[in-house]
């Protein structure tokens, strides 16, 4: 186990009145000490994102507009359904192609959706829909992907927890509250409720004991 005490220095710009002398002295001293040892990766690292909102975009080669994004996605997946006039670019994928689609948009460098913002489920009369809000930290795209289960009774979908680790926990939550089983999920368990409960976010959920309806 690494127990190195690398010095980190001061983050961002600080006002002069906030600079703590003792800390700096300590930092300088340890820096010196580390230099003697030959540690190269140590030093004051001052980073700050500045005024431009689009800094991330200027760093990378290009940023696609929402139309380009949709175009690229639909050309690769012709059977995907695109919803028009929605707040964000929105695409509905067939449940059997979900995993491959997700893998593609994560690994494709022009898309690079590496940040799963939110994963949730919505119960509809015929199916249960899982909604993925995705963002690319390099291109700053934002996109909504939807996948419907075949039916409500045996609601199953492929897990995306191998693509985005955070999905593992969101999927547990969805399983708990909506009852969607995720195939290949490493540890699907109920987070909030007891095993004796149903899945309360389903519209047909009724509980006369715990839930008071007005």
């Amino acid at each position, binding site marked *: 186990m690494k127990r190195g005490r690398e010095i*980190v220095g001061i983050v961002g710009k600080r006002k002069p009145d906030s600079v703590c002398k003792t800390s700096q002295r300590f930092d300088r001293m340890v820096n010196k000490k580390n230099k003697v040892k030959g540690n190269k990766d140590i030093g004051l690292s001052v980073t700050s994102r500045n005024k431009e909102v689009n800094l991330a975009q200027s760093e990378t080669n290009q940023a696609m507009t929402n139309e380009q994004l949709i175009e690229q996605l639909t050309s690769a997946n012709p059977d995907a359904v695109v919803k028009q006039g929605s707040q964000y670019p929105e695409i509905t994928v067939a449940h059997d192609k979900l995993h491959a689609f997700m893998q593609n948009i994560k690994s494709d460098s022009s898309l690079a959706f590496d940040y799963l913002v939110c994963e949730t489920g*919505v119960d509809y009369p015929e199916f249960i829909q899982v909604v993925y809000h995705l963002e690319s930290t390099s291109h700053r795209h934002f996109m909504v992907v939807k996948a419907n289960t075949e039916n409500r009774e045996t609601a199953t979908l492929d897990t995306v927890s191998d693509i985005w680790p955070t999905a*593992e926990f969101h999927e547990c939550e969805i399983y708990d509250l909506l009852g969607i089983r995720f195939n290949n999920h490493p540890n699907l368990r109920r987070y*909030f409720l007891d095993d004796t409960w149903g899945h309360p976010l389903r519209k047909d959920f009724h509980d006369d004991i715990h839930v008071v309806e007005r």
Partner: protein
Amino acid sequence: MAEFSEKYIITDEIKADEYLVNIGPQHPSTHGVLRLLTRLEGEIVHNVEPHIGYIHSGIEKMTEALSYPQIVHLTDRMDYLSAHMNNEAVCLCVENALQVEVPERVKYIRTIFDELQRLASHQLWWCASGMDLGALTAFFYGLRDREDILDIFEETCGARLTLNYSVPGGVMFDIHPNFQKSVKAFITKFRKKLPEYDKLLTDNIIFQNRTKGVGVLSKEDAIAFGVTGPTGRASGFSCDVRKHHPYSAYPYIKFDEKLGTDGDSFMRWKVRMDEMWESMNIIEQLIDNIPEGDFAVKMKGVIKLPEGEFYQRVESARGEFGVYIVSDGKKNPYRVKFRSPGFSNLFTINHIAKGWKIADLVAIMATFDLVIPDIDR
């Protein structure tokens, strides 16, 4: 559901010299009812499995029976330390859906309240994590200074914690006549107090040894696990919604996104301390320039959202807070999902606490700034 029950308690077999310790549900350092099922060997943490749901209040289900102004007041109760950001998120989502443009004055007021709330939250985080690391005096200093912000809240909103100040279309009241004066007085005072915080803990050699290099979360992991807020930014993950998707008055102001490099506990600490300075800068830019005008636009008595799905992200004190509303055109939403930052942040704890000591686990939890109702919702 029985086929999943055997996985419920222990995910792996316990090795010969390991033992299980339940940290929580009632433990001083979990700040609530979080249960960490920890496998230890001596003092070394081998595995941490968070078990949540002890105060699951079913807010998402409750919202399906409530109208939109009523939902706003429920969001106070999730992340009670960033109540106003949560309120604002729902209000912004509703306003975006209805294509309502709120007056400039409302935007300024909301932004000032956001930053005041962030200051209050970070102060409570500061003092509580000081307490976790054993510096009990920090707890009282933090609460002492937070009191001033809560007084400002109480003066204007009438409540200290569950503000319910934002309403769809504006804010509930106009700001109190004393508001600007008391905010300025607070900032002058707090600018003197923050270096004291540094002297008491940040510079302290014991504190630095406790936190530096402990619990490193790399940038890639932060993105993959969806760790946002100061916790993610300490790892170098630029995830500030205020910067990337500006809302309210954030487009008008200049501020820095504080980014760390190391992603260790000390960096998470430092980023939050720096954010407090930045919050004060933001408030100072806005407080004198609040434009005249209405404090709310007139909304219909019964607010009905058009059919469709709406997602709104705001930066709460703990990270990216998202509201996802599915509307079927009625006065109640069809489905509401709150993307809480704490939920994503919490589950990295196994990833980064492995191999550290039990005291480091406490330090890591302290710098993660977990609020349990935020996780359980």
